[in-house]
């Protein structure tokens, strides 16, 4: 399977390449006042306004570091941005399906499987993962405590 690996300080993940429209350096991010945590803001992608999700709200990571890249994903005809700290690269590797027990219950809906790479465990998301995050953000408040 071809996956795009991306990382935060605390962890590295991967996203299946299908559904990834493009990867860009974060352009200026328009902040949305009153937005729930997790909605990083809007970016202007060639005239289209795309919302950007910061997954750290759900992953429980420190959200103070800047999101250097945006992975633009496509789903149901819509574009959405996933803000990440670092983008590593595209890897071709078998990814056995299955979520190990060590993964928190909260995170398991996101995860498709994992593989080992460069000495780390890389958890691979479902291709629809970013959209799932969006749904979580919608009903957040309860989620975030």
């Amino acid at each position, binding site marked *: 399977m071809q996956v795009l690996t991306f990382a935060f300080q605390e962890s590295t993940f991967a996203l299946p390449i299908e559904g990834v429209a493009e990867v860009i350096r974060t352009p200026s991010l328009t*902040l949305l*006042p*009153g937005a729930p945590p997790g909605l990083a803001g*809007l970016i202007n992608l*060639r005239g289209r306004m795309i919302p950007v999700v910061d997954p750290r709200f759900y992953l429980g990571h420190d959200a103070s570091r800047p999101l250097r890249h945006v992975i633009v994903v496509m789903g149901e005809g819509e574009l959405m941005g996933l803000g990440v700290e670092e983008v590593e690269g595209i890897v071709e590797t078998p990814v056995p399906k299955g979520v190990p027990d060590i993964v928190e219950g909260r995170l398991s809906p996101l995860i498709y499987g994992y593989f080992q790479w460069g000495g780390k465990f890389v958890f691979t998301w479902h291709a629809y993962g970013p959209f799932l995050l969006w749904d979580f953000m919608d009903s957040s408040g309860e989620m975030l405590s």
Partner: protein
Amino acid sequence: MTFYELTWDSPEEKELFVAELGDLLQTLEDSWLSGEPDVAAAFRAAHTIKGSAAMVGLDDWSSRAHNLEDRLDQIRKNPDDQLEESLRLDVLNFVDFIRQELNGRVNSEANAESSPQHWRITLSPACALKGARAFQILQRVGELARIVSSRPSGEDIQEFERFDGNTVDVSFEPIGDQPPVDWPEIFRSIPEVEEWEQIESMEEDPKSRGTTAAQAQQRENMIRIHPQVLEGLLDGLGELLMRHAELSHRLNETSPAVKEALDGVKQIAMNLQDMTLRARMLPLSTLFHQYPRAVHDIARKLSKDITLSVEGGETQLDRLVMDRLHEPLLHLIRNAADHGIETASERLRKGKPLAGHIFLQASSRKGRVRIVVADDGRGIDWNGLRNKAVARDVMTADQARNATSESLVAMLFLPGFSTKDQVSDLSGRGVGLDVVKDTVDQLHGDIRVESEPGRGTRFIMELPMTMAILSALLIAIGPVVLGIPVLNVERIEPWHQDDVKHTLGVDMIDDHGHPLKVTVLSQLLKIEGSDPQMVIRVQDGAVKMAFVVDTVLGQQDVVIKPLGRVMPLIPWMTGAALLGDGRVALMMDVKRLAEKVGHNDSTALPEPVAAENTRQVPGSSWLVFGVGPLYYGISVDKVQEVLLQGPVNRIVGQHPLVEGVTMIREESYPVLSGKKLMDAGDLDDGGYFIVVHMSQHRFVLSVDIVKEIVPIAWSQIQPVPHHDGLEVIMGLAEVGGMVIQLVDFDAVLSEILPNESVAGEQKDHLPSLRGVQVFLADDSRLARQKLTTALINQGAEVTAYEEGQALMTGLAQAQNLPHVVVTDVEMPKMDGYHLLEQVKAEFPGISVIVHTSLDGRLSKEHCIELGADFVLTKWDVGELVRRVGLASHQGMDNKGGRTHALIAD
């Protein structure tokens, strides 16, 4: 001789007869469908039908036509004659009759004759790939019948690929000895097909024959564009403008000639943008043209007589908005036809014209389009709604009885709320009124209902003309840029902090003598780095507010990009606009933002205000209001809220001071008329409701004006000489050059609630107060009377004073100190707090009971802090007596020494 029995010289002859007859019938029908019948045209049609029918031997038809012709001729010759409704009915019935004769013929004959059927299938406006859909339809038909002709003709595939029409016409004949086909079922089974009808022939729709040459010419010159093409154009232009901005910035240091050229480019791009946006606008007639037919069909199905008149079709609207309006409008029209318009006999009984009237009107003003769907039917069944509300547990029986039409109407838009128990298949297609409201909301519009029982109902929709472009006032708050639709902006002024008056957790500024809610946007939206300098007064419908921002960047026409997913998360945002300099402005919905402010307010507590003031100034805060020509004051501690006047339901048998009841957030409050209370003349005006909470009693005081809150020191208050009658005013104060009369609501309350009397209250459980001496302070004569009586009845000795100063003097001069001092809080000269403090300081052995109508927790705590032995809220006289008893024992034991405070829970 019936039609079936006729013999024809040739099939062509028959076809010709049928076709011409069809045209004439259409003309007859058309001439009578509109509000002003075209009698001349109808007459000619009837005349011709009479002739033709006679010629082929259809005498029955001919004589009917003759009948009509005569009557029409009468009217034609005497245009001033009243048009009988029965004539109209007859004309339409005649048309139906002939049509049925013809159609029955055509439909029942599946085998023998080879007379083709003609159908017109209308595609849903949202259908993508119309060519493919048309192909599918024709293919389907082709499987079951022999297609004689069709439009699109389907001779080659290219035609389908180019096809962009909304209707597919097809004429076909049944194949050999196939069983009859249920064509409506076939058409229904094809997705994205909206309607199907049999038409008389494959000729152009006879209605359109009436169009003038000019219109036909105009239609020739138009082309259809897929909306996506326009989107692409707009996106491209947006980007062009951005690149221009970039270029312009980089080429800052160049010659004026270059700058001029760049400007030229920008101008062109902006013009193109403008034109492209306007290309999205279409006249509403595009939507409306199909409704007369729909009404005609519905009317027939319901056996009702209904005309539809349409006005304002030339009004322009963004096609995206129009697309979404189609279903809701259709639903409203069907609703009107089904539920609104009564049957002919019912109308006759009511003395209404036989034909029900549905009125569709569009107009535009200031960038908003208004569409009205009105009917002259039976109006909304208010009682039915009330019953439904109770049955659905949305309201209690009481609430339902008192509910105003506005609140009932709000329920109409709840899902599943139809006053008919079985939703008829016509208006129950899954598009309820709640979907209508949803759609209108999503289009950032408004919908309201007006209805008069027996007279009719009006649905009024207001929508922004286009969702795409907006003239916006851009404002900056810290790093955030917001846009306010220019239509909503009333005034812009520099901001001064001192202009704000804090009223019970709500900040207000003056707006020509009326309070206007003001909110600092950086605080509301939690934006950092803000430096508020300007205040903008806005209005959206009935909502008026003021927003404080940093700077006003100016006015600009911006292209709004919808934000789909993001919208539900940030309800006050309607979209994002890309500015020329690359920044993004967030467009706001004024009404929604005002709602957000409202939510924050309702959680604010009134107490902090009172506490602040009473600690700093020896006095308290009073809310100044006006009734008639004079000003009055009410203690801010008692005021819960100030609202704009709402609807009042009159109640019979209430105290004359009480106007009725009103509902505030689903609780009912008696409304006290300020005018009646102050005896201030005529009973009109009134603009505000002051919501008062006093010792478990709540009511609303209706007044003309609410001015401001002022602190008044107790020493400033002049007591008013008492006289018989209702002691409404407890004192006067001069504030800012005007005299304010301070209202004593204790007296008012006890006047209105006479059942709060003391007499007969559990006399047996009351302690004896023999030998107990009590000093009592209360500015209300009534209160002094009540308490004195109650205490004396238990054997106590009572000395009563009007206010604190007098009581202190009394103590100083007393030979025997009292055991207990009972005091009110609100008194002129020296209030209860100060009295309490002084008594405890100078006479620590005396127990002090504070007896007040103030409800607030903080005022109670304040009393206890100052050393009160007990704090009681009026009016529980029995409890007071008991407490005096307890306190007297305490006091008696420790006379001269320190008293333990009997802390009230």
